């Protein structure tokens, strides 16, 4: 694939400007429906959010609707819940993405080897990602974490009973460690995602080079450190980036497992609550605007990562 700009210009024998322009539009025509659809449905709502963020608008007090200036933003930045949810969002996303990346890499390395039943283990590893997220969150909350009849405490009882004790520890997992409970359920769902991308990366390694290095007496660790890791870097970045895009927006697990209580409310949940329960449209929009600006800052860095991947492909 050669670069985009050089393909058309030299070959065209410079026909009339009108003809060329109609050719341009013929090229653009197939793109336009998708582009216009996306602009209308993803950009217009944000413009509306921006407008509402400067308004005093609470659906419970419809008579008081009006211009509010920067009031909503002041309230967003001084609201302790909102600041707390920023911290929670960062903690939640970073923990889930980093732990699932590390686990995913380890498991991908294991699955890259030949052993009996490799296909079966791979299938088992994918399964958590194919459970509907709300269903998974419900199962973790009620079937695993529940202090009275959840599997975790049930296993503790069974093991203690085995050793003749009638007073096993029965912690209330979600109350004791609310954020970790949410994170664990998410790590369970996202590790397969990371594993799949990283495994594909491992399997695209140039095997002949590695064999040659082995012949020259390079140890397993050296091969991993100096050959596998550098090759995997772009896959790690890609998996981390895509994982972050999805996990930072997580709503299902927080909503289901803790209902945003006990310091687990992340930004999507807090904004949802501000507008859905408190009906404070102005403040919810201001929070949305702040989140979008934050996202743009982070996304600019992220996009740079993708564009390097993209250029490598383009230059192939």
């Amino acid at each position, binding site marked *: 694939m050669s670069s985009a700009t050089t393909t058309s210009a030299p070959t065209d024998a410079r026909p009339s400007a009108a003809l060329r322009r109609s050719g341009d539009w013929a090229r653009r025509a197939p793109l336009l429906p998708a582009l216009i659809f996306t602009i209308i*449905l993803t950009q217009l709502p944000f413009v509306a959010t921006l407008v509402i963020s400067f308004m005093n608008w609470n659906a419970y007090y419809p008579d008081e609707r009006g211009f509010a200036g920067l009031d909503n933003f002041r309230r967003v930045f001084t609201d302790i819940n909102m600041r707390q949810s920023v911290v929670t969002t960062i903690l939640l996303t970073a923990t889930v993405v980093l732990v699932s990346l590390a686990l995913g890499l380890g498991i991908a390395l294991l699955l890259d*080897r030949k052993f009996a*039943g*490799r296909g079966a283990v791979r299938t088992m590893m994918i399964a958590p990602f194919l459970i509907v997220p709300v269903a998974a969150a419900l199962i973790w909350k009620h079937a695993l974490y529940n202090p*009275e009849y959840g599997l975790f405490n049930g296993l503790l009882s069974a093991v203690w009973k085995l050793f003749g004790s009638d007073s096993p520890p029965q912690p209330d997992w979600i109350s004791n460690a609310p954020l970790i409970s949410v994170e664990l359920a998410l790590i369970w769902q996202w590790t397969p995602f990371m594993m799949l*991308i990283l495994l594909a990366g491992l399997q695209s390694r140039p095997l002949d080079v590695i*064999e040659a290095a082995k*012949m020259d007496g390079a140890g397993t660790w050296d091969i991993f450190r100096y050959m596998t890791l550098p090759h995997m870097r772009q896959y790690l970045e890609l998996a981390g980036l*895509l994982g972050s895009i999805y996990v930072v927006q997580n*709503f299902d697990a927080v909503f289901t497992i803790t209902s945003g209580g006990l310091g687990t409310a992340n930004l999507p949940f807090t904004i949802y609550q501000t507008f859905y329960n408190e009906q404070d449209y102005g403040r919810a929009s201001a929070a949305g605007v702040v989140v979008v600006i934050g996202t743009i800052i982070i996304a600019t860095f992220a996009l740079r990562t993708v564009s390097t991947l993209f250029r490598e492909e383009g230059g192939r």
Partner: protein
Amino acid sequence: MSQITDVGPTENSRATTLNNRKPRPDRKARGGALLGLLAWVIGILFVVPILWMLLTSFHSEADAATNPPSVLAPLTLQGYREFFGASTGASPWPPLLNSMTASLVSTLLVLLLAVPAAYALSIKKVEKWTDVMFFFLSTKMLPIVAGLLPIYIFAQNIGMLDNIWLLIIFYTAMNLPIAVWMMRSFLAEVPVEMLEAAQVDGAGLIRTLKDIIAPVVAPGIAAVSLICFIFSWNELLFARVLTATVAQTAPVFLTGFVTSQGLFLAKVCAAAIVVSLPVLAAGFAAQDKLVQGLSMGAVK
């Protein structure tokens, strides 16, 4: 990403490795077996919550709520009967059908929009096509929740709340950027020289489509459909805010399933299984497509 194509030198060097150095095969084999065992243990750990959910869904409510767990309790279909409304009369079929409609129709719309767009971004490229690609990607990074409020107010004003078509339109918008990225990466592999040669030979449009484009594009369409279907089926936030009783989807139905009174675990497990079945079936049927889809076509 390139596939491993040249196997020749690899085979050669492997043969010489075996001849030259024999690094204590016993120890190596034992280490390999241990790592295989470790993989099995981790795989089982990851699948235990699902197996537990499956087992519990076939237990009676009383057996499901014991501590320590009663693994060997008799199996029953009571949980599934309850899910299908045996005692409450609340049928799960309308939400399941809503989910199916929203997922299938939005996937179809995504394909109708994404395939031509990807064509204009790969085969007959528009100017500044990389900018367009990054515009699509950047919409995926914007937090959905920040745009949800105006959509809600707008839908309320035009009377579209609790209407499945509203969800279909937004699921299409949600998945379109991923689909464009994926389709482009597939179309980029269509051999353009062959297209031109076919044109010179006077091959008709249908033959060109069938012989040159379809073999490359068909797997792409399959991967896109799979991913769009899964993401639409799983979606909760939009469905929860924009629908109520008429157009509610299966995930919303699930969240209303937990009661504060009485035992419900077997019923919830049965519900979780039924609702996840389409995704599990689609995902396992197309395991290899999953990676391409999840990485937006960047990894093949």
